């Protein structure tokens, strides 16, 4: 569906995107994860044809953005990071206008407007001006505007920034449903949990480059000893720490008073062995917590920084 081939973009002497390459299959939900300033939005802008790349190419459904930008734009629906709507006209009028701009006839645009209002769950507020909407409602219409022409590829650039949890959930559910109905989705965010929830495959972007990509499991498997088991005991015991270090697949053990952290690549086996050793040593287990590896830890390991740095 989408092929991004060695895309580069420089502003003056500053190279913002330094050769991004990835592809997205039809019907797939693909995540672009990276901190602010990583080059995600610039990459998205080049995919949409909003800014010209310095080099490289993008093809959507086999059509090159460099050769036929209008055709590519017809296939794409873009949800921008900011609310890009006309605040003094109603939601219905906004949707109708964007439908017409994507080439729908008057009749088609009217019909589709009602459908989209239903998708975003705002039929009952459709007559109200956008300026009277809450932040979350604006975000929903912002997404709706990109759905008017039933795009083959929906690109969402941080669509949940600054909204309440309820609206965020609604948006995530809407995107999930659209994807399940067959729409290809590219979702960019620096919220790891959103990308994890929505996306089958993920590319981690940092400093203008894709530094890793794959499914969540594939990315997490890159981390050795990424699962941590935290056991709280009643009395600290240096001898116990040494013993726990001998368990199979345990990479390291750290102690902070009564709190023991065990890093392992096989949490299931290590947890049983560790609890058994604690009990055998005559200590009491007060609490146990297992932390699976996530994209945050992958990013941390790959870059030495957190996603929100």
């Amino acid at each position, binding site marked *: 569906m989408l092929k991004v081939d060695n895309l580069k973009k420089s502003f003056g002497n500053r190279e913002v995107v330094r050769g991004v390459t990835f592809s997205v299959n039809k019907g797939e939900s693909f995540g672009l994860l990276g901190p602010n300033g990583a080059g995600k939005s610039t990459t998205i802008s080049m995919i949409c044809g909003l800014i010209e790349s310095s080099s490289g190419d993008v093809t959507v459904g086999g059509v090159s953005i460099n050769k036929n930008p209008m*055709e590519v734009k017809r296939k794409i629906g873009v949800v*921008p990071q900011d609310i890009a709507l006309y605040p*003094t006209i109603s939601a219905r009028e906004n949707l109708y206008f*964007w439908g*017409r701009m994507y080439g729908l006839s008057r009749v088609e645009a009217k019909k589709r407007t009602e459908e989209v209002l239903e998708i975003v769950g705002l039929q009952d507020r459709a007559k109200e001006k956008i300026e009277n909407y809450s932040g979350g409602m604006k975000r929903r219409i912002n997404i709706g505007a990109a759905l008017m022409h039933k795009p083959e590829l929906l690109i969402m650039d941080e669509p949940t920034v600054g909204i309440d949890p309820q609206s965020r959930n609604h948006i995530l559910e809407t995107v999930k449903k659209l994807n399940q109905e067959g729409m290809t989705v590219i979702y960019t965010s620096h919220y790891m949990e959103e990308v994890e929830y929505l996306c089958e495959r993920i590319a981690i972007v940092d400093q203008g480059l894709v530094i890793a990509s794959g499914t969540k499991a594939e990315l997490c498997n890159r981390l050795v000893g990424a699962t941590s088991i935290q056991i709280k005991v009643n009395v600290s015991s240096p001898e116990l720490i040494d013993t726990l270090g001998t368990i199979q697949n345990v990479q390291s053990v750290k102690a902070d008073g009564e709190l023991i952290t065990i890093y392992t690549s096989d949490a299931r086996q290590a947890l049983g062995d560790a609890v058994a050793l604690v009990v055998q040593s005559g200590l009491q287990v007060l609490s146990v917590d297992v932390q699976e590896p996530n994209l945050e830890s992958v990013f941390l390991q790959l870059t030495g920084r957190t996603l929100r740095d």
Partner: protein
Amino acid sequence: MKVWIIAWKDIKIRLKDRKGMALFLFLPILLTAILGTALNGVLTDDTNSMPKMTIAVYNADAGEIGTRLIEDVLQNERLASNITIHSFTSKEKVELQVIEGKNDVGLIIPQDFSQKIGAAESTQLEVLQDQGKPLISQFVRSIVTSYANRVGAVAKASKEVTTQLANPKQTAAAVSVNFESLAAEVIGQLGEAAGSEDSFVVDQPIGKKAVSSMQYYAAAMLAMFLLYNATVGAKMIINERSTETLARLMNTPTSKTSILLGKYVGTLAFSILQLLIFMGATNAAFGVNWGENVLQSIVIGLTYAIAVSGLSMMIAAMIANEQAVETISGLGVQILAALGGSMVPITVFPDFMQKIAHITPNTWALNGFIDSMSGTTWQALLLPSVVLLAIGTVTLLIGTLRLRYQ
């Protein structure tokens, strides 16, 4: 097609903006009413400043000159709307009418008025005045006195000439002339001339007619408030850029040129709408005559709308900051409006100021409107139309080219 979709969206946004609508439609009409009324008579046509009055007349004169005074002077085309004549059959009845306040002024034309004037003899018109209405009495007195003096003067001169010509010592060529009939004819013709409307024309307008203050300020307010579209149009483009809707528009399969033309056509269409509503409203509410051939005013308005819409594109291309456009809108338009004659007639300015004013499109527009109202020719409107079109075209090109590459 997409040009129209964008333009219609912009028009809709502006029509829904109540504050903007008040500024663009209601305020100019209100200002026209205030300025047009307050400065009534300041301009060349003073009939609107003249009070309405009634005159009770007893015309005892059997001759032509007394009748002319009533029909050609007091009831001529320009005064008839303000003066109502009531005729009575005796002096006493006229006096009674004035005393009882049923008529503002009384006028008695004596029995042998025409004959005595013709013979260059002394005669007297009587103006009976209501003490409570000195201005009206004064006004009527000055009109009839002026008429009587002029006819009397002509009669005396004619009599003198015919007397001289009748002298046998004069040239032999004059012997065959019928001097009495010549004198009567001369007096008749000059009397007619003395009573004609042309005698009251003081200034020579550009066209056939002078414009009233209401007409002037209608044109002036239209020129000023249409100019605001240059800044409002620019603000709409800048706003579209700052709210990311421009980026979103660029994400749709729409060319940059279509987007920019859509913005231009939106401003142009709103300006034309404003022009037509304003012309219609001022005509309906205040009877503003936009010219015998109203098409002339419309053509000037259309070329002016093209000019201000072009300016909006250039301003948007030159200024990226909405705040700066606000300043231009507030101060710049006021300065241009003042310079262009929208506050006070441009004719009161010194010559060099009047020349400088021609750099502003509103000056050309205002002059064009005034010329149209005063009944000028299409040929005379060619220059302002071409200048306005040129301003519109050049600014549109500069603006569009710059915006395309931003």
